[in-house]
């Protein structure tokens, strides 16, 4: 069940996927084996709603996935504090990375501090299913290194102007998922969602784009579903049954659950999105 | 001028400390003064002005198991220029046995204009020994720039390196007065406290004094800079059971601290 707001009422080709293309036309790089958490980067310009999206995903995955968050915001502790205040994620599951005023460097050219933070989360918390890496607010040229994340989401908002998708840049054109955020503001800022949709398709080819308003969909359902789909489609490895516990980082998608997750037989099953449980509150 | 002095302290088995050896020579004379608590207090009495460039002074201190020794100086040492060329040197070697206590709390070293002085301290503290070791350096007499002064503090605890610190000031030392080293402060110093009876303390900072738990054992270093000797001393008074910060309450935050906090936004 998708909130209706998520797609603008425009001429609409249902064959263009909103979440993920068919396996045969998957434009993404192969995902790594499920020996560790899936790492998903969330980038985008300042103020586009990255932190709000992270908070929504934390809410959506509560009780479903073992989640960690690494935040790179320039004012590092502010993002972490936002998540703490929102009560959506245990502070122990958040790591902040200082970027020395170079947010793009920390996620693209010199990723060690972020990789350290990901490692520290796993060391402190045991195996995780998903780590969200939020970039510091930057401009349209920022992208994540494939050495840091497996998938990246680029967030732009309608208030930034409906020409943003046309401007392109590696985030808009190449992110695995483009999120056009704050659609509820479109009438107020005079943004034409159909223009944004058309330009995004032109820029992105088969790569998916979602329209979203966290105000109206506090669980960011489309993005959450997309991540579930990516998790389910990672290539899997044979994890010995007795290694699926906390001692093994290889239990990534085998142990999907809450704070004390019960192992589930997801590994090896390329479950369709619709078959995955949706963690609605 | 060359001079050596030696101080050997032992516990007498009745709760008192005795000095089987206490000898010195000018300008390094040692005087024991009465102390009421069983420990001994020894003053280093400068027999002449100095140290002067060219002086070679050496003091050995050996504190045996259970003995308690305090060492003070009667006045600040003023390192002065002497014959051109050589430096003045003051070497202190101390050993502190298990259960022994050495409180080395001399007055300041003042690096006068034109001086060339090297102070070396090499201290070995056995596991279970207690040490208070204070170094204070005043960069120049009032209103003058200092000569070259180097204060080297090498302390081992239980046979492991605990503290290695060389502080060097003077006209030939790049950046010593600048914002990375002393920031224009005329006085700087540190107090090392090794005390097995004292609980570990977390790091803390207020203005220009910091409390630093060391890596090599249960030991804490207070390090400070200050505008003058008096302020520095307030930062570096040895702590007592009831005073975590040296000199009582944490020093009042100086403007420094406000600007640090202000950076937050």
């Amino acid at each position, binding site marked *: 069940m998708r909130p209706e707001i998520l797609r603008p009422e425009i001429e609409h080709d249902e064959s263009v996927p909103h979440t993920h293309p068919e396996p045969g036309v998957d434009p993404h790089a192969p995902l790594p084996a499920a020996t560790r958490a899936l790492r998903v980067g969330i980038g985008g310009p300042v103020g586009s709603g990255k932190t709000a999206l992270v908070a929504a995903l934390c809410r959506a995955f509560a009780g479903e996935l073992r989640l960690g968050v690494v935040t790179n915001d320039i004012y590092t502790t502010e993002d972490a504090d936002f998540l703490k205040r929102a009560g959506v994620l245990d502070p122990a599951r958040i790591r902040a*990375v200082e*970027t020395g*005023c170079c947010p793009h460097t920390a996620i693209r050219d010199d990723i060690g501090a972020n990789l350290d933070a990901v490692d520290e989360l796993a060391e402190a918390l045991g195996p995780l299913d998903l780590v969200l890496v939020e970039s510091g607010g930057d401009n349209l040229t920022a992208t994540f290194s494939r050495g840091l994340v497996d998938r990246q989401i680029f967030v732009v908002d309608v208030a930034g102007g409906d020409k943003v998708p046309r401007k392109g840049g590696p985030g808009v054109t190449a992110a695995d998922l483009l999120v056009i955020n704050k659609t509820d503001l479109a009438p107020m800022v005079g943004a034409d969602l159909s223009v944004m949709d058309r330009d995004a398709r032109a820029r992105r080819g088969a790569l998916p784009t979602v329209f979203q308003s966290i105000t109206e969909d506090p669980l960011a359902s489309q993005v959450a579903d997309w991540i579930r789909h990516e998790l389910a489609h990672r290539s899997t490895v044979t994890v010995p049954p007795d290694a699926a516990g906390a001692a093994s980082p290889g239990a990534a998608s085998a142990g999907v659950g809450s704070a004390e997750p019960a192992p589930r037989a997801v590994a090896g099953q390329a479950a369709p999105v619709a078959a995955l449980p949706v963690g609605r509150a | 001028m060359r001079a050596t002095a030696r101080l050997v302290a032992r516990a007498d088995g009745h709760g008192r400390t005795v000095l089987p050896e206490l000898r010195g020579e000018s300008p390094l004379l040692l005087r024991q003064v009465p102390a009421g608590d069983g420990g001994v207090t020894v003053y280093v009495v400068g027999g002449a002005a100095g140290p002067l460039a060219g002086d070679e002074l050496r003091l050995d201190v050996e504190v045996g198991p259970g003995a308690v020794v305090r060492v003070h100086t009667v006045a600040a040492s003023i390192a002065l220029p002497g014959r051109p060329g050589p430096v003045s040197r003051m070497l202190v070697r101390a050993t502190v046995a298990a259960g022994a206590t050495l409180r080395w709390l001399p007055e300041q070293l003042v690096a006068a204009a034109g001086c060339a002085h090297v102070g070396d301290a090499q201290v070995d503290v056995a596991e279970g020994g207690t040490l208070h070791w204070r170094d204070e350096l005043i960069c120049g007499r009032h209103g003058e720039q200092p000569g070259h002064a180097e204060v080297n503090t090498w302390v081992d605890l239980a046979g492991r390196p605990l*503290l290695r610190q060389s502080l*060097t000031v003077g006209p030939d030392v790049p950046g010593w007065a600048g914002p990375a080293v002393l920031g224009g402060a005329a006085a700087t110093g540190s107090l090392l406290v090794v005390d097995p009876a004292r609980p570990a303390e977390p790091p803390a900072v207020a203005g220009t004094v910091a409390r630093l738990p*060391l*890596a090599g054992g249960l030991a804490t270093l207070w390090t*400070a800079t200050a505008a003058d000797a008096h302020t520095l001393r307030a930062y570096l008074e040895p702590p007592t059971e009831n005073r975590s910060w040296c000199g009582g309450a944490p020093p009042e935050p100086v403007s420094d601290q406000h600007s*640090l906090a202000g950076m937050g936004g």
Partner: protein
Amino acid sequence: MAAPTMLLLLADGRFPAGAHAHSAGLEAAVAAGRVTDLATLGGYLRGRLATAGLVAAAFAAAARRAAWSSGRRATLARLDAELDARTASPAQRAVSRRQGRALLRAGRQIWPAATFDDLPVTPGGPHQPLTLGLVGAAAGLDPAQVATVAAHATVTGSASAAVRLLGLDPYQVQALLVRLAGACDATAARAARAAEEPPERLPAAAAPLADIHAEAHATWEVRLFAS
């Protein structure tokens, strides 16, 4: 002596070992009002070079010397303890180990055949200068070159942070670095000579404000730089 390009690669601020996120105390010095312009930055860099720069370069060169020695593991352990004893500030120790861990991550991936397992296993990671010594060995640098990389990083890291924090004119800052090049080389040469001594006799040049700045910085709720 290694090919010059290898030296340049290791000294490059773009070498992925996290340098961009460290100001080496400059962020705190700026906040305290001690570094405000090009002149005070110059004083800061000279002081850093003579203290932390000399110590880091000497330890890096010593670790590089140990890299091909038979007692390498024991020497590295001694160097680790000696460097701890020269780093009174817990915040500075943590930063050095954090940077060492970042450099080790890069070294392991770039030189997979090199052995880094003799570095002391410590909770926060190996000290940066020790790691640099072994990475330098993997790259074929000699101790003097490793010391040059360390001394160079001491000044360029803070200078780059100053450009970002104070908005200084990058040409003027680069001109300052050019003026400091001789001091940088002299520091590296001195460090390389000192590295021939046993670990306990390596330089221990201290800077009270470095400790004070580092501890103040560590208490901030909000930081732009990791150090």
